[in-house]
């Protein structure tokens, strides 16, 4: 046990860390189901642009979302490092395309800081916090909010009559 365990709201966080357009992001490992290489994606006509399509994951149809497009960070180039992080939250299973999965990190929750007010990448509303690990800034994403945001996004598209 570490010295910080005296206060009850300090806990250990495990993150899957990945790279997206030169920034490092993390998703809590508890919501990550698996990490797979990119495979044949079936395009879904008329789906929102950030939906790459669907794949067959051992008999299950899993939608694939391009996180770069989702956060308007430009097009992902497919390389041998490109991975799909399959996450599950509140019954939804979705795969996120990321540039590279770097590592799994664990650190204490009290080293998490609130998101900086101005951040070049993703909208602050999807960020749970940032952690500084070995001089790197890792942005912890809130999966639930991303899901929720997508719902709203697709409704916006509907209103725009797209």
């Amino acid at each position, binding site marked *: 046990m570490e010295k910080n365990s005296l206060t009850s709201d300090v806990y250990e966080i495990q993150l899957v860390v990945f790279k997206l357009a030169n920034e490092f992001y993390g998703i809590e490992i508890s919501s990550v189901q698996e990490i797979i290489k990119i495979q044949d994606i079936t395009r*879904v*006509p008329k789906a*929102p642009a950030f*939906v790459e399509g669907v794949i*067959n994951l051992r*008999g299950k*149809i*899993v939608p694939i979302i391009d996180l770069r497009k989702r956060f308007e960070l430009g097009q992902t180039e497919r390389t041998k490092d490109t991975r799909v992080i399959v996450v599950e939250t509140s019954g939804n299973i979705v795969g996120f395309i990321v540039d590279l999965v770097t590592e799994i990190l664990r650190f204490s929750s009290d080293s998490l800081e609130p998101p900086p007010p101005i951040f070049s990448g993703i909208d602050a509303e999807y960020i749970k916090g940032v952690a500084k690990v070995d001089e790197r800034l890792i942005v912890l994403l809130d999966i639930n909010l991303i899901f929720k945001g*997508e719902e709203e996004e697709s*409704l916006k598209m509907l209103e725009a009559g797209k």
Partner: protein
Amino acid sequence: MDIDINEYRSIFLEETKELIDQFEKSLLELEKDPNNTNAIQSLFRAAHTIKGSSASLGFDSLSKFTHSLENLMDMVRSSKIPLNQNIIDILFKGLDYIQEAVDDIESGHNGDIDSSELLQLIEKAKTSPSELSVLPDVSKIEKNVSRSLEELNDIETGVINEAFIKGLNVFVVKFSLAQGCQMKYPRAYMVLKSLEQLGEVFKTVPEVTDIEQEKFGLDLVYYIVTKSSEEEVKNVVQSIAEIEMVEVIPYESTRTEQIQKVSQESIEKDDKSEIKVKADFKKSQTIRISVERLDNLMNLVGELVIDRTRLIKISEDVEEALSGSDSVTSLAEVTTHMGRTINLLQDEILRTRMLPVSHIFERFPRLVRDLSHQLNKQIDFIVSGEETELDKSIIDEIGEPLVHLIRNSLDHGIEPPEERKSKGKPEKGKLMLSAKQEEGYVVIQIEDDGRGLDPDKIREKARKKDIVSPNILEQMDDQALFELLFLPGFSTADKVSEVSGRGVGLDVVKSVVERLNGSVSLSSKLGEYTRFTLKFPLTLAIIQALLVKVGKEVYALPLNVVLETRFLEEEEVKSIQSQQVTLFRGEVLPVLRLADIFETPGRENFQDNFLVVVSTSDKNVVLSVSDLIGNSEVVIKPLGYIVNKVKGFFGATILGDGRVALIVDTVSLMSAVKEKNFIKVG
């Protein structure tokens, strides 16, 4: 005490619901045939049981009411008061009351619903039954004369159901011994023995012990389950000396004709006669399984079906690469065998999800009765094929559309008695509801012998509503005109009546049916009949689909909406006001390029070679695709998060090579194209 009262309550509810169904069925039988002593018995028993069980759980109002009802039934049963229409009406009201009370209990209350008015009616009926009655006093009519052949006990019905599942025939063999026959028992025995060579005799009237003691007249009835045909059975019986008047009736037809008469002698004994020729008919042992668990099983089998398809492909590839090797041959063998086993497994699982359509058909006799009274029409309602089975999820959905069609027939189809009489038709109208299995489909038909549809009237209406352009309208044949009735907002009834016709109509029926991957069609002859035919797949989880190629992408079109495919010939497709059209069965249909709708990448670079005519909710359309792959059985999988908000697809399936193909929902696709909006709300 720590007894779980809730458990008792749910047992009570389940039991009572069954009793209510039984009560209703018997009551309808009784109304048709007031001499049906069995129906009276069964009513009495149902009331008695409900009284007992409701009292034990403290549902006093219900108990008190059923007690009074039971008394009334008892007086009828013992002929203290005559059975008349008044009493039957009271019994129907009583049934409604019990239903209401049970609903109340189910929603967590005590069933305390005021029944004093009804109780007064019952008391009045007990003391002065004739005062209010319509009075065809039936108590004097000979009790024994009519007795339906339907009186089968559970074991016998079980045998019959099993036979139908196995595809065996069930016949009712009626015959008489020659007048003056000296050896009644030996003759009857010979018939029995020779029938047993064809199949199993599972019931005799009278029962075997009575036959042995020659306690019967000249008429006998045997029930047989057999592979043999009607003809073969008849021949065997006729070949025996001193046997006359042989009649072999398929069991189903006796069911629809209902009131078969059995001669007086053969029913001297009041109780049912039965024998078990082979004692191995086990009482069906059942357990309850949650639908969720069945769904899981179904999904797992779906996985296996996909693997099977993939494995077959892999095995073929391997064979090509390494033909001649022993292990390749065994791989092919194992693959084939596993494929077959998976097929069987799939069938079995599908079957566990199946329910007989009687689950929904049961409520219709009452509906027809009430409606025909309300409309002052006389209806002979004939139901057949209730034992036909369908997937539970389909059963759950088709009740409403069927109610709608039945109402339609009663209201608009069948004429009032005077009108029928003046047309030279029997005053009593006929409404037939049937179900049967045909290959991989269940076909449900509703037919009335009423007015029929008037093509000219439909044409006139279409013209007024400006639904179809006039020159096309002139070219349309009757069948095409009937199809117009399924368009939204198109109803032929001139007046809106209370029973049906409030704008919601056949278009709703059609959309429900198509959502279930079924189809509906209509045929009619003016002045003679109208017939709706609904066709459903046995299950929703697996469908037949046509796989098509759009460029490099593969899509699945449910086969139930595909009307025709054909090679695309340039001269067939014409351009009218920048819209591509083609002629199909005399109708001008729009041609839509799937590649354009789907914005397929590189669509400028490939040609379409095939046309697929598909039906949608309002109009048939022609889709052009680059290639046809063929028909295939596909497992429907949900599309998942976000993607399920995209219109035009109701799922995806996994192809033999492991890739995903989207299953096109033509109805929602066309409405999305029309509205230029592909995202669902909510």
